[in-house]
């Protein structure tokens, strides 16, 4: 799109000898909703911390809103809101007081602080529980309060680390639609780090898959599936009325169609893998042969398959330089396994 609001160039981070983030190059454009996917220990949180200046990269740079995050973290934090997983509040103060404290720390003029805090609470739907102590809040309310926290400074970018962890499904739906609404309305760029593939799939424009500190894939859903499953990018399942006899007479002809790579017949379903979307041609083929077509399903690879594929490919590499576990842990577990 237009301008890049986050640019990561050659970002690398070592913890001792462990490479947590490996030469990361990523660009996120303004107004996008970007999903950071990856297994635990892939380096997502480390990347986020480096973007905010909370950790120093071993090499490379992170440029957010045209400021270098390591050298000018305060300027970055003025424009970026961050909600960590396990967000904590001062339990002794009410939710409104918590918000007002954060607003004051952000330099909002004292006259506006209270009215802004009120607005935010209404926006996230917590106005009924405004004056209750933050310690009494349920998990879902805390996440919403965290969102209000992040938005009170009217940022350009918001970074959410596992925002829907531990929230019931309806709450998740509301939360995600709220995020999407805010992003579109106020042109806020959203960076979402999550394990929940369905949610990421629904919400995000682009997705980045992190494994072992490396960004393995980056792009929208169709781009990713095309990239991965270039041979079997599209699978069309055609349900016919009558069970097809085996061997089916037209199988060879079907396979000879351009862009068809594989044909699998199971009872009354024909599964055709193709490199291009030739569904109309397939349907025409069946109609010409006078076979009654009951249903046509186009299976597009979902995020789960893509995720699994990438994760599988790198699993064996991961085991060698995975997270370092303590010596005690290793020897202890070895003993129990021997028993």
């Amino acid at each position: 799109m237009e301008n890049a609001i986050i640019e990561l160039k050659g970002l690398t981070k070592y913890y001792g000898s462990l490479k947590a983030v490996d030469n990361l190059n990523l660009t996120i454009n303004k107004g996008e909703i970007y999903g950071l996917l990856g297994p635990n220990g892939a380096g997502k949180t480390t990347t986020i911390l480096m973007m905010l200046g909370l950790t120093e990269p071993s090499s490379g740079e992170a440029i957010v809103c045209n400021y270098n995050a390591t050298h000018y973290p305060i300027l970055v934090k003025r424009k970026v809101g961050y909600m960590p997983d396990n967000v904590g509040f001062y339990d002794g103060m009410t939710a409104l007081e918590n918000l007002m404290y954060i607003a004051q720390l952000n330099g909002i003029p004292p006259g506006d602080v209270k009215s802004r805090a009120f607005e935010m609470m209404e926006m996230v739907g917590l106005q009924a529980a405004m004056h209750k102590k933050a310690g009494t809040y349920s998990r879902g309310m805390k996440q919403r309060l965290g969102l209000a926290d992040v938005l009170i400074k009217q940022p350009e970018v918001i970074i959410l680390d596992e925002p829907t962890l531990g929230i019931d499904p309806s709450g998740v739906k509301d939360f995600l639609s709220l995020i999407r609404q805010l992003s579109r309305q106020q042109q806020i760029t959203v960076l979402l780090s999550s394990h929940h593939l369905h949610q990421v799939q629904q919400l995000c424009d682009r997705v980045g898959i992190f494994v072992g500190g490396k960004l393995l894939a980056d792009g929208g859903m169709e781009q990713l599936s095309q990239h991965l499953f270039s041979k079997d990018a599209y699978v069309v399942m055609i349900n016919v009325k009558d069970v097809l006899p085996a061997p089916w007479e037209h199988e060879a002809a079907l396979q000879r169609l351009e862009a068809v790579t594989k044909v699998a017949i199971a009872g009354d379903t024909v599964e055709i893998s193709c490199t291009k979307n030739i569904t109309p041609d397939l349907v025409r083929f069946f109609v010409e042969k006078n076979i009654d077509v009951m249903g046509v399903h186009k299976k597009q690879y979902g995020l789960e398959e893509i995720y699994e594929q990438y994760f599988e490919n790198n699993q064996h590499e991961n085991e060698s330089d995975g997270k370092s576990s303590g010596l005690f842990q290793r020897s202890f577990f070895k003993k129990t396994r021997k028993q």
Partner: protein
Amino acid sequence: MLRKEIADITRSWRFIVLLVLIILTFISAMYVSLTNLKAAIGNESDSGKLFLYLKLLTTTDGSLPAFHIFISFLGALLGIALGFDAVNAEQNNGTLIRLMAQPVYRDNVLLAKFLGALIVVSALFVSLALLMIGGGLIITGVWFEAVELFRILAFIVLTVLYVGFWLSLSILLSVRFKQATASALTAIGIWVFFTIFYGIIVKMIAKAFFPDPAFLSQAELFSWNNLLLDLLGLAPSHLYTDATTALLMPSVRSLGPLSMEQMAGAIPNPLPLRESLLIVWPQVSGLLAATAVCFALSYYWFMRREIRS
């Protein structure tokens, strides 16, 4: 940020408990000294000056230690209690990372914790001293002298400095340790060590390594003695008690043994404030240095550290 810290401290349980303890100590010390005031003043033989208020703070008839001795115990506890969970509780709660995500400088967090506690402690001691002076005025009707006021002010400053040392030590430990209990126990352990064991260990080492005094000349004896005093002076409570003794009892001339030559020609008069201050200057600078070192170390460790949830 400072406002919030102060509000948090004054509302917290542990501060209230310690406050009650200190007030009780104060009241009992005052009571003891008031009842013995007549005897103390009656014994005043070496000067025409009547330092009533200083006597109030220091007289004791042996049943209870003097107020400033009490403070050397309780002040340490106060400093430790206010600081031991300064940073690690915030980290464990998840609020530290939320705080760090705001555009505030990281050192402001440390400074706010330190200064917030110091402000509360200073307010406490100033009000206690003023209460004492007011109470004394009402009860005895004797007006206080300017010198006394300055000495009492210096005493307050010294007390706040002493509490500040323990505060910065416990903040240092809270930055270092992840668990609040670990930092609290370490701080208390250090305090117990210095209060009880340090003197004993130093004396044991002195007995073992220092040469037999019978075989030494006068000058060598002095130098060994000074060495012993210096070693003992590494304990902050010792520094504090020395300094306050010199400040509050103007007739105290020196904090170590004096040779006959030094004593010759000395007029038994209470010292003016400046001279008393000069005597305690090494102690004061020792405390200041220790506080500064602790704070600098905690600063160094905190500033570059990675903060994760």
